[in-house]
């Protein structure tokens, strides 16, 4: 579930449009404030996942919707249709038309996920420091945040996560211990209210 935890973390982080005016004064706290003030609702992603032995990365696309009061809705559109709603202590997944609800009491790993999600959505980025070493630096194009897991089980599977952005978060690189890499590229979409289908799934997260 490591990958899942990382995805949630990123998706919620990313959706904040970041304008890094004073790169040298960039701190996690500052980032937090910006996140809290500009919570972006919707964005499109392209994910490229390299798999050991395969000549080309696995490419998938979809949309991410963040509603601070509900949670996150992660929607895969290509090459397969699937939706994953993540709440504080609940996960609703819909794969191949089949819906399933997982509770934290059934799947304890959800709790870690929920905790991360909650701290991110409520803008407590400092909570990240509990699980990751955070290195924030300026680049020519904007800024880079590198997260290295502090402890098991995240550290067993994950080398690090690198986020890059300028006005917005543009790219995320997840590096697994076994050499696999996942790259996510984000593009902010104009805010739009959740569709009926999205709302139905989000309602289940309550």
């Amino acid at each position, binding site marked *: 579930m490591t990958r899942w935890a990382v995805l949630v973390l990123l998706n919620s982080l990313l959706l904040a449009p970041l304008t890094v005016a004073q790169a040298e004064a960039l701190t996690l706290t500052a980032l937090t404030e910006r996140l809290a003030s500009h919570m972006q609702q919707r964005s499109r992603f392209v994910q490229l996942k390299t798999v050991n032995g395969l000549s080309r990365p696995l490419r*998938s696309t979809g949309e991410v919707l963040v509603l601070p009061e509900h949670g996150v809705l992660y929607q895969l559109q290509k090459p397969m249709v699937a939706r994953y709603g993540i709440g504080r202590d609940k996960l609703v997944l819909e794969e191949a038309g089949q819906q399933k609800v997982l509770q934290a009491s059934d799947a304890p790993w959800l709790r870690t996920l929920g905790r991360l999600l909650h701290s991110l959505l409520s803008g407590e980025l400092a909570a990240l420091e509990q699980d990751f070493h955070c290195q924030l630096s300026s680049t020519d194009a904007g800024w880079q945040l590198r997260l290295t897991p502090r402890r098991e089980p995240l550290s067993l599977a994950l080398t690090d996560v690198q986020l890059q952005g300028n006005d917005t978060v543009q790219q995320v690189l997840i590096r697994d211990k076994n050499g696999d890499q996942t790259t996510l590229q984000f593009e902010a979409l104009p805010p739009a209210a959740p569709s009926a289908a999205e709302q139905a799934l989000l309602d289940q997260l309550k």
Partner: protein
Amino acid sequence: MTVLRSVRVWLFLLLLALAGGFVAHKLQQGNIFSTDLLALLPATERDPLAEQAAQQVQTAIGSHTLFLIGHPDRERARAAANDFVASLRAAAVFDRIQFELPAGAQQQLIDRLLPYRSALLTSADAALISAGGEPLQQRLLQALYSPLAVAVPGADPFGFFANSVQQMRAGAGVAQLDDGLLTVSRDGRVYLLIDAVSSQSVFDDRYQRQAIAAITAAKAKAVAAGAEVLGTGTLRFAAQARADGERDVSVIASISTVGVLLLVLLTFRRAAPLLLMFAVIGASLLGATALAILIYGKLHLLTYVFGTTLIGIAGDYALHYLTLHASSTPGITQWNANAAMRHLFKPLTVAMLTTFMAYLAIALTPFSAFRQIALFCMLGLLCGYLAVLLLLPAVLIAPTKRAPAALAWTGALHDRLLAWRQHRRPVYLLIGALVLMAVPGWWLLHADDDIHLLQKSDPGLLAEQQQIGDILQQNGNSQFFLVRARDEAEWRAREQALVATLQQARQHGALLGWRALSDALPSVAVQQQRIGLLERAFDASGSLHTALQALEFSAEDIAALQQQTVTRALLPISDYLAMPHNQPQRLQWLAPADGGVASIVLLDGIHDLDALAAIELAGISFVDKTASISALFQSFREQATGYVLLAYVGTLLWLLWQCGWHGALVRLLPTALASGLTLAVLGYAGQPFNLFTGIALLLVLGIGIDYALFLAEGEGHEPASLLAILLSALTAVLGFGLLVGASLPAVSGFGLTVLIGVLLALMLAPLTLVLVPETRVSERPVPEMPLKETP
């Protein structure tokens, strides 16, 4: 004092001190009590392999003590559990405490099984791959793109192996691994599971004390921290049984000793009889304990409980001599201590022998627990008897100064009884009426051979066990199936046939689940098939190849995925069981002495025992130790009934030889009537008839016949005999009657039977006096009595 000059008194005191010293020494060493009742039972299974399997299961279950530490808040539950485990570990009473899974344990499990991943392909995945087409394609997409896909990177791109591991772990129950802890959430509480394994026998006296003390201390800490602590295991039940048994022994022994001594003091109103009584009881108990420990090394607690009845029986012999002594009215009779003993020798010996024979009959039953109890009591009888022979004439040299008032009272009673000899008709009518009244009671009497006769479990502990079973949704049963076969292939076919039957039984709600080795690991042949299936699926026209092609994977990529997915290693069951994480499953695999293959299928949450017991398949047997023990008890009860009848026949024959038809019948009548009425009373009271009731009837005969004999033989000084009988019946009632309060249903039922039987035998004993043929008695003149000699 002149008394102390007697060699016999010194000898007695020396022997008593020896026995006392030995017992005290053993007590200090500890470990002279055993509480394992089942260990006292003979093998219950006809099949030695089934017996071995039952023992293996029993020992494996018995060594575990499970704890659940609950708290609404997860972190606080965790903290409390950490403290609890630390406290138990510090006490060093458990061999192994499984709480936190060591870091990387799961990874190790995966690493060990990974080389066999193709062989271990689940049947569901195999079916999916065989079918191919759209569903397979969807599944591959999910495995590759879903953020939820569980896979081992570089080795399990499609999550097939993840499914195999999940299926193998499915039998682990509802407890989830959460941050390295086994966790169950229930009713808004988080429970953490702790499994403590005892290193020693949980029935061991000293070990029990240490372990229970450690648990109590650890629990107190956790409870103080606001956590809920639930625990269950044979250890706790055994410790509770011991506590109950010890309480029974001390309470019953003290009350009956005080009662007997009080009775003696009230009757004789002098210190000497009191001290003598005390000495005889002490000699009987200490002697029996010392000798029995010498023989057995360690006695069952039940033996001590039953042994307390010696207080009542051994005192009798002293009572007979004491009453004789007390009736030697000063001035009228000359008291000669040794002559009196010579006179009493025969009835005393007969009385001792009848009771001794009763216990001997008990010892001859195949129930080893009873053998020990009977031997203990026989030794106690002998010690008490010898103490009376040795000590009393040596101490009671001087005649009594005044006769006890009770003698005058029994004298009057005796005269009134003799008057009945003129009106025998109402007596016969009374007997007839009693028998008539008894008939419905006999009809109401029912048998009960349940094992719970010997297992009175504390309701609190039972409730805790139930609660744990509910939370874990797992209720390990002691019943199981034994699967036997000539070879592994046959074994697997048989076990799988059983599993199919169990699946049906589960649909009908007969049970919740089972754990079968053949479910955990497919056969080598199937493993080979699965590998072949995967290999073919990657062929140019194979289902996986086609599906991957449809998903636009290149030929090289497909080849790479094939290389990751297909392995050729086979996992035989022996290698599988040798893996460290499969250690708990090893007990399910048996090595029959006569070759072949055998396994145990464990059962969970049985609701319909009969349905399971009725399953009949080739090579499959249902082993139910509880039912076997009940069956054993039933056969013991039937045997015991036979023994009682045999004992009556034997006694009758002996009486016939001694005193002819009429004499024999009137001597046996009160006891036989008492036994019959006792059964009727038990029937009316709804008390069951079982092995223990049967054994109790043997004792009623042994004790009751004494009363009749003393009354019939005591011609000439009846008031003294009557008083002696009254007193000894009261002491017996004190000894056995108090067993009614014992915690084990078997013991209290036994006590109740003897109590009613002895009381009835006492009340009916005068029948002998009334109905005894006078001519016969006069034909057998009473030997010249020293106490009748006038100076």
